[in-house]
């Protein structure tokens, strides 16, 4: 008789409690990658805002030479060969310290200058993520300031010899994956860790860039991303290129985590400046991202500037828009 009750009791325990099948975590550790993403969003969600890549026209810089702080991040020799009057020559290893110690918030704008606009766009993004909201990039760098520096761009604008193999297929994004693991769990205050990480990328410099996309497209060794408008994507893209709409698809609520955490990612945009900024952002998040230099300007330049649809011309390096602004030589 006793056994009957024991068996009944056990049965009641087993069956009566099965309906609540949630495993309740008793002590949850917050995911450090999630906290890093949260921090970057709280810094202004820069890469998903309309502000990126914060380009500034040469004419505006020229009109404000006395009020803008101009920081030239090129090599010392390039600076000696010609620079904007009043510019500081600060290399990447000194850049953050310079920004931190020169009261840059007292300036309306701080303009970073590089040879072609891409390196400065990379640093602009990192400094914005760090918390400086008045950093800008000289559009197309010194190449748009004066024709004497434009060679770096003029020799790159072209249609790819492999353009015939490009298509307009909508290649699917990958399934969602976890965010890359960046920090050890509980390794410290996330704001301090994030800023240290951003500082390390500034010190490392703009090195994660590539100049050839066609072989990569054929080999399928990297995850190719076209970051921009759908119009750009539909102009034709290397096979296997996946489309991510600018200011939209890399949001946490959208498709950020369709980027593969364990594969190299090569990003191209219109002209390499936005992709440099996106590369910086993704690297801070732990993705193995690289920027394709000069973007669509060295893939399908004549398709962008030609034809009846001129909407993409604004993103092209146009010879007729190169400035004739003065520069000084020496230190």
């Amino acid at each position, binding site marked *: 008789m006793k056994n009957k*009750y024991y068996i009944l009791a056990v049965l009641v325990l087993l069956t009566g409690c099965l309906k609540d099948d949630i495993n*309740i975590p008793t002590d949850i550790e917050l995911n450090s990658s999630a906290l890093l993403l*949260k921090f970057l969003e709280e810094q202004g969600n820069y890469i*998903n805002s309309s502000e990126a890549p914060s380009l500034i026209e040469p004419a505006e810089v020229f009109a404000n030479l006395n009020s803008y702080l101009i920081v030239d991040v090129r090599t010392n020799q390039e600076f000696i060969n010609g620079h904007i009057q009043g510019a500081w020559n600060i290399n990447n290893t000194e850049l953050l310290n310079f920004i931190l110690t020169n009261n840059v918030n007292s300036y309306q704008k701080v303009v970073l200058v590089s040879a072609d606009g891409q390196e400065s766009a990379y640093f602009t993004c990192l400094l914005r993520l760090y918390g400086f909201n008045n950093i800008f990039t000289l559009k197309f760098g010194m190449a748009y300031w004066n024709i004497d520096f434009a060679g770096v761009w003029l020799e790159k604008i072209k249609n790819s010899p492999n353009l015939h193999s490009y298509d307009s297929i909508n290649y699917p994004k990958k399934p*969602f994956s976890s965010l890359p693991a960046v920090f050890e769990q509980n390794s410290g205050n996330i704001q301090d860790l994030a800023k240290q990480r951003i500082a390390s990328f500034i010190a490392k410099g703009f090195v994660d860039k590539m100049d050839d996309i066609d072989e990569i497209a054929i080999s399928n060794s990297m995850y190719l991303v076209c970051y921009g408008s759908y119009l750009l994507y539909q102009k034709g893209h290397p096979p296997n290129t996946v489309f991510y709409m600018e200011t939209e698809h890399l949001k*946490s*609520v959208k498709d950020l*985590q369709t980027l593969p955490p364990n594969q190299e990612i090569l990003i191209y945009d219109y002209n390499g400046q936005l992709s440099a900024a996106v590369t910086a952002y993704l690297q801070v998040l732990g993705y193995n991202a690289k920027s394709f230099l000069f973007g669509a300007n060295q893939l399908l330049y004549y398709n962008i500037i030609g034809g009846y649809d001129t909407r993409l011309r604004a993103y092209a390096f146009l010879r007729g828009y190169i400035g004739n602004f003065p520069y000084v030589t020496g230190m």
Partner: protein
Amino acid sequence: MKNSIAAALLSIIFYHGCENVDVVETKIEYRERIVVSAELSAETFFTGVTFTRTLPIDETYDIKKAELKNVVSYLRINSVKIVPLHYKADGLYLPADSLVIEEGDKYELIGKVDGKSIYAETIIPERPSINNALKEADYIEAFITPREGEVYGGKWIVIASGSGDTIASAHEFSSIIQNSGLNTSATLSVRTEVIPQIYLSSAYSDRIFIEVCSFDKAYLNYYNSRSGQNVVNNTFIQGGESVAWNVFGENVIGLFIGMGRSRIKAQ
């Protein structure tokens, strides 16, 4: 005698065994609690999570005193996708950008405040599939095709003739029901509370609907555990009550519940 003791023991085991001590709160005296509230409605924009604290019963409720501004939290969708939540105002936390709640997805709320963990999970039900609805004397009854893991409730609503905006609705469900068996092809009846006389006139006959809500099944535990099945707004404010919440953590109460809505005009 032995049989009586054994029966009593069995009853004790039954009640203790099935009581989820983390979920059901039975103390009535005031104890400060963290209150979490979120409704995740299928195929609509996420309206956020509110984090507040309870206030003593003799204290006038003031959201500025009750809100929590220092919660670190994020959503995890389908165990992978992370969506950080950011404080906006009055205890409300939202994603940086608009988030559409998707049917069938699992949403987890993961957070910490003052070193204490907060956790909840819910699965977003599909919007109810209403086959038809009948207007009875003073209520509306709808017939739906139920699905596994979901529970249902119905409310009457009256819409404006021009804009279609809701101008009046029931405050409560008359009941929350679930499919009684495993036969998901069976039709389930959902009815509203009694409709006020004014809306039973012919002037409203074309503008009165039944809105059927589907919920994650956790809602049934909550609904059935409320004292007298009354609305628990006061509990959200002052705490207490013996309610089965689905948000977990030390001194944490609240609902983080997935739901779907469909409406149909009564025939």
